[in-house]
């Protein structure tokens, strides 16, 4: 029997090996058609559109491509098998924790933590498998594998096939590192790494400027969150002297919840800032809708099921910390609720099928943070897990629709597709019921539990619950608006699209069916406590995670139990189902029964509609304040300052030097040297008479000598 527990470090490495192979040898396996290489302006339109080219039909089934299709999903399957093996073995461990440390990654030096004493800045390449990371690796590998398989079909006609799977595998590597890390610093490695993969995949169609813009925006906005994360780790180091989960939790054990905003609240807040970036919460959510520029499987895997939930995972991982910080926890819940309703309100009026789903994801992530904020960590993870199935399914279904229509994404130009692409329709139908919260589908259980916990937890409140319920109504409405517009009613397809419509190949529909099964049944291991006729086996999820969150819930659980009122819980549950049904009914009424009503409403409520349609103008405000104002404006101002003042000073000094030296030259020429020359001139002047004597003629000298001798002789003779 293989000891999978000691091999958990291999789980991320399989996809890494795949990524390295693909990126090193990919171009040999999958020679690129010249059309991808030479892209002059104008010529580029050939693979324009959403990039989902219409080179449909001819499948370049080169053997190299086949190998890529094998390696890409295959490495993820290996990780899946090793994960499953490890999780099964973990279940057999009494302590439900297994740590494997490979080596010390950063062995930096001694420092003084804030409380005095000494510590060492160190971080291991260490992996931790506990019930929480077990859930995460299973979600990542199962959903990841299905999406990889789907991509074989979806990306089959695309250029850069090898590049796609290389990046996808790279993503899975980093994501698995993120959830298996045994310390914050290694978690941060995965954290940044998934951001990188996300950047690469959003910009996969890099010939499109919008794709490049979206990738850059995602990376930079995430970096803002990461700055918070880094500061959180630094404060954590200063407080506890370590970033290892086990050690941090040990240092937290026995502490009482903070009454004010103390150092723990500060750490939690900084970490949460990181989470708002990665998980697209207010104020850093704006990158996620733009990230839909990436191929649809990317949206499904990275921007719905896994990466964006990393923030929720991180908060849950830090539950022992967050549970001690009521103020930050409240903020987490409030931001979650606000994001949930804000994003849902935007989703009500969007027309791009992927954008609706993107805002839906932002909104659902808000639910997860709401749960985490009210101390219901296991519920947050539960919703993360059910959401992974139905949201991945929705995106893949949307991808299948787009695929069927040859690249069309606008739901106003769809309609009546349900009989033409039946598998896609039926699976998406299930997912839409699930996300709307209709029992007994997966979404119902997790969402209902979130609402109940928000109502009943001592950290929650009725107001937050109300926001959650309104959001649930909106969710049901926008999802079914999307469904009715896409699949029902009369077809509004473009000529070209309607000729093109076809159901996707099995390689794409089988993952859809598998995810649909998950969307139905995934929730059955987290049934409400009041459904007493189901045994405890149906509440496996909570029990499984209990050891991880034991320390966190210890502070609040006692209260929660006291609050437990069965009749209220029943009432709320029924209410939430009614609300969801009402949302669906309203969508049906507006988009099926009276298809002209939405336009009328839109015109009557134009201001509201415009605000929602333009996403509350958040992007415009950010662009104005931060991108163009602070960064670019500041940058150009400083550039000019640098040239004029700082460098001006240097050049000024140079000029001054030259000026003074010119002055010196003048002084030197006319004054210093001038006086010398004046003396010379004077001497010269006085020398003129003397020069008359010195003629150089021998005869003259002889004459002078003769005259002189004559004069001298005469003088002596006359005397």
């Amino acid at each position, binding site marked *: 029997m293989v000891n999978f527990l000691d091999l958990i470090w291999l789980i991320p490495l399989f996809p890494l090996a795949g990524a390295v192979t693909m*990126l090193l040898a990919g*171009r040999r396996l999958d020679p690129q058609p010249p059309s991808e*290489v*030479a*892209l*002059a*302006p104008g010529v*580029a339109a050939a693979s324009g559109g959403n990039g989902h080219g219409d080179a449909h039909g001819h499948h370049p089934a080169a053997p190299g491509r086949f190998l890529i299709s094998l390696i890409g999903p295959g490495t993820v399957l290996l990780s899946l098998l090793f994960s499953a093996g490890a999780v099964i073995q973990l279940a057999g461990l009494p302590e439900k924790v297994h740590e494997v440390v490979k080596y*010390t*990654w*950063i*062995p*930096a*030096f*001694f*420092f*003084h*933590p804030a*409380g*005095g*004493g*000494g*510590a*060492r800045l160190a971080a291991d390449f260490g992996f931790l498998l506990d019930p929480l990371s077990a859930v995460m690796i299973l979600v990542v590998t199962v959903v990841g594998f299905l999406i990889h398989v789907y991509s074989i079909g979806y990306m089959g006609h695309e250029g850069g096939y090898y590049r796609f799977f290389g990046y996808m595998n790279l993503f899975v590597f980093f994501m698995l590192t993120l959830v298996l890390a045994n310390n914050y610093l290694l978690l941060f*490695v995965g954290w*940044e*790494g998934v951001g990188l993969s996300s950047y690469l995949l959003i910009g996969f169609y*890099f*010939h*499109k*400027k919008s*794709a*490049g813009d979206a*990738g*850059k925006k995602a990376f*930079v906005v995430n*970096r*803002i969150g*990461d*700055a918070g994360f*880094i*500061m959180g780790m*630094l*404060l954590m*180091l*200063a407080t506890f*002297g*370590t970033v290892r989960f086990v*050690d941090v939790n040990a*240092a937290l054990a026995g502490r009482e919840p903070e009454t004010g905003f103390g150092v723990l609240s500060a750490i939690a807040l900084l970490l949460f800032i990181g989470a708002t970036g990665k998980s697209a919460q207010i104020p850093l959510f704006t990158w996620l809708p733009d990230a839909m520029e990436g191929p649809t499987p990317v949206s499904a895997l990275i921007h719905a099921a896994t990466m964006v939930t990393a923030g929720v995972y991180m908060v849950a991982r830090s539950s022992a910390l967050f549970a001690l910080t009521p103020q930050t926890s409240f903020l987490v819940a409030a931001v979650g609720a606000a994001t949930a309703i804000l994003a849902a309100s935007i989703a009500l009026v969007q027309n791009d099928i992927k954008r609706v789903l993107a805002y839906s994801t932002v909104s659902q992530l808000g639910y997860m943070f709401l749960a985490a904020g009210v101390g219901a960590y296991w519920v947050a993870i539960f919703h993360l897990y059910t959401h992974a199935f139905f949201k991945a399914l929705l995106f893949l279904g949307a991808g299948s629709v787009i695929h069927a229509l040859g690249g069309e994404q606008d739901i106003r130009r769809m309609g009546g597709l349900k009989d033409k692409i039946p598998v896609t329709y039926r699976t998406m139908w299930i997912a839409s019921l699930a996300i709307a919260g209709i029992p007994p589908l997966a979404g119902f259980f997790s969402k209902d539990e979130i609402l109940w916990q928000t109502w009943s937890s001592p950290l929650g409140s009725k107001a937050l619950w109300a926001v959650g319920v309104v959001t649930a109504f909106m969710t049901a409405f926008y999802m079914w608006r999307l469904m009715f517009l896409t699949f029902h009613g009369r077809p509004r397809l473009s000529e070209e699209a309607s000729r093109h419509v076809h159901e996707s190949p099995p390689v794409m529909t089988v993952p859809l069916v598998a995810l649909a099964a998950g969307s139905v049944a995934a929730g059955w291991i987290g049934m409400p406590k009041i459904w007493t006729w189901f045994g405890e086996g149906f509440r496996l999820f909570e029990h499984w995670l209990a050891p991880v969150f034991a320390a966190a819930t210890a502070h609040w659980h006692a209260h929660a139990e006291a609050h437990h009122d069965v009749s209220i819980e029943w009432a709320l549950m029924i209410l939430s189902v009614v609300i969801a049904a009402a949302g669906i009914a309203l969508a049906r009424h507006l988009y099926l029964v009276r298809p002209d009503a939405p336009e009328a409403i839109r015109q009557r409520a134009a201001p509201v509609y415009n605000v929602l349609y333009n996403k509350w103008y958040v992007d415009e405000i950010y662009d104005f304040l931060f991108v163009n104002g602070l*960064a*670019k404006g*500041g*940058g*150009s101002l*400083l*550039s000019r300052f*640098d040239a004029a003042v*700082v460098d001006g000073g*240097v050049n000024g000094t140079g000029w001054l030097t030259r000026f003074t030296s010119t002055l010196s030259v003048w002084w030197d020429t006319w004054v210093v040297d001038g006086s010398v020359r004046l003396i010379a001139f004077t001497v010269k002047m006085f020398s003129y008479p003397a020069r008359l004597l010195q003629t150089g003629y021998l005869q003259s000298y002889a004459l002078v000598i003769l005259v002189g001798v004559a004069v001298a002789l005469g003088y002596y003779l006359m005397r």
Partner: protein
Amino acid sequence: MSEHLLSIVLFTPLAGMLVLLLLPGSNKNLIRIWANIAAAAGFLVSLPLVFRFDKNAEGFQMVERYDWIPALGVKYYLGIDGISLLLVMLTTLLGFLAILSSWSAIDRHLKAYYAMFLLQQTGMIGVFISLDFFLFYVFWEVVLVPMYFIIGVWGGPRKLYAAIKFFLYTLAGSVLMLLGILTLYFQHFEQHGFYTFEISELLKLDMPLALERWVFWAFFIGFAIKVPMFPFHTWLPDAHTEAPTAGSVILAAILLKMGTYGFLRFSLPLLPKASIDPWIVQVMAALSIVAIIYGALVSLMQDDWKRLVAFSSVSHLGFCTLGIFALNPNGIAGSVIQQINHGISTGMLFLIVGVAYERRHTRMISEYGGLAHVMPNFSFVFAFAMLSSAGLPLLNGFVGEFTILQGAFETNRAWAAFAVTGVILGAAYLLWLYQRTMLGQITNPKNLRLPDLNLREWAVFLPFMAWALWIGVYPKPYFEVLEKPVAQLVERVRPDYFAQHALAVQAPAPGAVEAGER
């Protein structure tokens, strides 16, 4: 032989240069081949330093000490510790790669070009291994001359302006530094009765704080111009931009490190009282933080590819100086590692500009765009360099940056909070540059037929990439060689730093200490 290892490392490039001068100037390839051989030899002879280096030894290793000018007390005195070791290896490897990268870029006055590079190698190595202040100063000035000619002869359109600015600016700084050195020299005579420039002797000086401060500022001018710290940085964009590619690489990767090295080797240990003077430390930190943010913001708005990279150096070097003046082990160690990292990442970024420049003869970002279509390998290497420079974990930059930030945080939390914005802006200017040059469609028909990297260019880039990955994934050896010298430096400046620890061990704080000893 082995006891003269440092001398061999020091003079191999010079010997190579002397032979080079004897070669016939008409045979260009012969000159190229010989220059590459000499540079490669320079790197190979430095490898034994790594294997012989004892990371557990205190003080300097492989010491050579002879009288040079006995009348003045000047010694030929060489030795290395972990800090010098890393910088010497950076110099020998990058010097070789820079020369290799010049193969087709330079076609005029080849002999002089390569002679200058080899001479410069000796100068730079000398700076990093001299333990006699006079000898150090000689090498410090030697370095100026070849770089002046490299910029002035083989540079871009404004080469003369840039070369003269570089030369005069740095010379002005070093003259002030010389005054500082002479102050120490005469102080030493007053206190100990004999003249010497030896660092180990000068360490015994005990000067009043006021005098230390004066000397600190004198050194500061010399080193800060070299680093360069804000506001002494404006020679850098001109010099880097106008220099030929290999010149920019050497300038950024190694020459700038002479400044930071100066702080570490001289300012801190020789002037410990001034170095912890709160006012001085605050000024140093403030200038560093301004450099980080200012350099990044100015980078963002450059439309000249090379100038953008040049300004990013200002930002990165801000991290290095911030780490030094955090005055704790992690800050200083992070700073040294970041100096190496900056050499690798920015060296690569300049080489990348060089590759593009050699094909298109322009540095304007707007002339490019969509290069990833025609040069996929090049765009991959560029992405790698960009991520290394932006501090992506598992590549080199992150290890240095995080360690510096931790050190800064320990000393003053606000410093770290300001510095961390550099991490955001770093991603912004690099990604934007990448997008404008590599992504999108090819809008300029001249870019349509650009050849991708050739084998020689790959040979230049691969060592950089391997090194970046090594530091990012397994930085342990770097921390190991730095442990002793950094501890010694901190001990010297803050004698009570580790003493506090000894106290703490007797009364451990819960959690913290076990974690530390783990």
